[in-house]
């Protein structure tokens, strides 16, 4: 659906995006992951037609997408990090206004509006003035304005920034709900969020696209970062000694101890989960839990950004 070829964008002398190339299929939820200043927002703005590319091209279904593509804008919905809202308007009036501005007829807006308000979970605040709403609701109104015209591509820049845990869970549902109708691009520097909401991840570092793929594919790029969390019914020293006998084990750290069990994080050079369990059981210890390390994605991300920085330095 979208083909990005050697996309480069300068701000003066500074190169914010450096020859990024990737493609995105229809009805995919793709996450842009990167530290602050990595080039996520700039990339999304170019895809939204808000900024021209300095070099390279962006096409949507074969048609070139740039800042002068007025007709193409009807196919795109964009939510910046700070939702663009007219605070003096009510939610319903605002979404109607944006729909009209994007070329929808009054009848089409009325037909589409209930579904959009429902999807964005705005039913209880439709008649309230936007200026009176909480940050979480404002974000959802921002999404409603981005999707009211049934765009084929929805771009959400940091949709969960500033939200509380309850709002994050609700926002996750909203983003997942969009997938059936359109392609969704989401940017975030919150790794766990990207991994939970996106089908595929594009990792940006210093303007460069340093990796792309599913979480599993990215894990495969850095085997050494494979780690597993274990809960073992044994003493700490006994469990550690047994695990160290496995050749694949690189390091062991203790996460905690309770009720005669010890929680360990084992970092491995290759996937040796079955061997670890076998060693522990044969040594007479009970294995209560074997789980992927929750910090795994963080490790991958740090590895990717570190290797990007190393390349730059060399």
């Amino acid at each position, binding site marked *: 659906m979208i083909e990005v070829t050697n996309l480069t964008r300068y701000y003066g002398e500074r190169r914010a995006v450096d020859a990024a190339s990737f493609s995105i299929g229809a009805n995919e939820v793709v996450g842009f992951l990167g530290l602050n200043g990595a080039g996520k927002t700039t990339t999304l703005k170019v895809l939204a037609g808000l900024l021209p590319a300095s070099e390279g091209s962006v096409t949507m279904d074969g048609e070139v997408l740039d800042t002068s593509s007025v007709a193409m804008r009807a196919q795109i919905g964009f939510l*910046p990090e700070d939702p*663009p*809202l007219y605070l003096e308007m009510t939610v319903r009036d605002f979404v109607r206004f944006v729909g009209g501005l994007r070329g929808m007829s009054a009848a089409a807006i009325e037909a589409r509006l209930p579904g959009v308000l429902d999807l964005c979970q705005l039913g209880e605040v439709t008649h309230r003035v936007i200026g009176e709403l909480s940050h979480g609701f404002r974000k959802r109104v921002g999404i409603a304005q981005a999707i009211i015209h049934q765009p084929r591509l929805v771009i959400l820049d940091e949709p969960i920034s500033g939200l509380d845990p309850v709002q994050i869970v609700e926002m996750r549902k909203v983003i997942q709900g969009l997938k059936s109708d359109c392609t969704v691009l989401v940017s975030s520097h919150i790794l766990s969020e990207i991994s939970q909401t996106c089908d595929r991840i594009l990792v940006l570092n210093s303007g460069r696209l340093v990796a792309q793929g599913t979480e599993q594919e990215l894990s495969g790029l850095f085997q050494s970062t494979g780690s597993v969390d274990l809960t073992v019914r044994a003493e700490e020293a006994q469990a550690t000694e047994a695990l160290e006998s496995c050749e694949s084990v690189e390091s062991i750290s203790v996460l905690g101890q309770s009720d005669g069990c010890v929680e360990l994080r084992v970092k491995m050079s290759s996937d040796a989960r079955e061997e670890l369990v076998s060693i522990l059981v044969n040594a007479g210890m009970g294995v209560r839990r074997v789980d992927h390390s929750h910090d795994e994605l963080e490790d991958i991300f740090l590895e990717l950004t570190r290797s990007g920085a190393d390349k730059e330095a060399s």
Partner: protein
Amino acid sequence: MRQVFLLVRRELGAYLNTTWGWSILTFVLLIDGLLFNAFAMGGKQKYSADVLTEFFYFSSGTTMIAGILLTMRLLAEERQTGTIVILQTAPISESQVVLGKFLGAWSFLTLITALTAFMPALIFVHGKLSIGQILAGYLGLLLLGAATVAIGTFGSALARNQLLAAVLGGGMLVIMLLGWMLGQVTEPPVSEIFSYVALWDRHFQPFQEGRINTEGIVFYLSITLGFLLLATRTLQMRRWR
């Protein structure tokens, strides 16, 4: 054109739903009323036509000030609050955005101007007055208002915040008003050019005296169109950067 109408309606709603719009409306009516009572109606006895001429003289000043105050927020506020993204991502051209914004502000200024009509009505009831002079005067105010709103729209397109927009719009307005002074201290043909581009002196006076002159109409429409084109160009250039 439907999108332009939507923008006009939204701008009107923004003026009517905020204290800013009502403050400007109150300011114009209050100042016009005070000046009308103190100067136009006060002092020695005058003909009704002269009272009306003085009313349009004062009103032209408040119209220009109101024009700048109304337009300072048009595009600068959108940029300041980030809502410009809504316009930039909508399938509408920059010229449509500028036209919608201009018509919204000008419609509200026209509403304010229409509300001053009770003052000429008082002269009309108590004196002897030609309807033609009233209509010509109001036509002049609407044209002067359109030109001022266009200048303000351009100032707002240039600026990053509302205060700067007011300074830029007001500055351009003052420069254009002072053209007649430069016309007096320079030699022809330069003096003719300065006199011609002066926003008020040569072009508004016939209207306030009840004369509709084609030159004035063409002048104000040209200024309006010219500044709207400049505002459009400014938005386009911002998009290309």
